[in-house]
């Protein structure tokens, strides 16, 4: 068996890559994908911990996270489409009609 801590290190790397994507990319859709990668890293962590505790709570958690992610992505992409209709861009640097 693979020690659980290996999974935790993998999850940490994936989470860090997701966070990096959020910080360096300016394309709203890619930023959104990076957020999904971060959620996925957390999910991996939950399942790995659930395995090490031999309890199912962690797996149930992932089930709910997947459901919530679906809702969040749907709303997020709808907002991206709405923004694109008026601005013809999804570069987050161009979202600055308000200042102060």
């Amino acid at each position, binding site marked *: *068996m*693979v*020690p*659980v*801590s*290996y*999974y935790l*290190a*993998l999850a*940490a*790397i*994936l*989470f*860090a*890559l997701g*966070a*990096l*994507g959020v*910080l*360096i*990319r*300016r*394309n709203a*859709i*890619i930023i*959104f*994908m*990076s957020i999904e*990668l971060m959620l*996925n890293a957390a999910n*991996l962590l939950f*399942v*790995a911990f*659930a*395995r*090490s505790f031999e309890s*199912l709570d962690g*797996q*149930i958690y*992932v*089930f*709910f996270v*997947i*459901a919530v*992610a*679906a*809702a969040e*992505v*749907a*709303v997020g*992409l*709808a*907002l*991206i*489409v*709405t923004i694109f209709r008026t601005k013809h*861009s*999804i570069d987050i*640097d*161009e979202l600055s009609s308000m200042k102060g």
Partner: protein
Amino acid sequence: MTADLILFFGLAAVAIGAALGMLLSKNAVYSALFLILNFATVAVFFLLLGAPFIAMAQVAVYAGAIMVLFLFVIMLLGAEQLLTSHKSGWQRPIAILLTLVLLVESIYLIFGRGRLLSQVAPVASDYASPEAIGELLFSRYLLPFEVTSILLLVAMVGVIVLIKKPKANN
């Protein structure tokens, strides 16, 4: 090195490679495809960790529904090649530095916990069977389960509100 470890490191390399691919692709469609690959490998990890139900949900909902939605929107908007307008130069080094700090910290935190280094014992064969998950969802987790149904309904309503074009007469 046992077969288990070889499998783990092979898949881990694919998962990390796919994540990097998503980050660095210039084309948003490639990014989405790399992310699907990443989700699929994570689903295999879920199987290895004794979570067949979650693995299936991951493939069906994440790799299936959510990523198809992403691809659909990218193609709808024709946003494959939208490139960065003006790269803010100072942001990138800071982002990389922050990420490294985060990474070192989390790995330190994880290996700081000696107990988890130990191998896990094999679990009973009915661990995480769909029956066991279903029973938990409808007993202990009944309330969150019901809340999820409301959340999904409302997300649907919200999306329709946002996407619907205003009528021509007003």
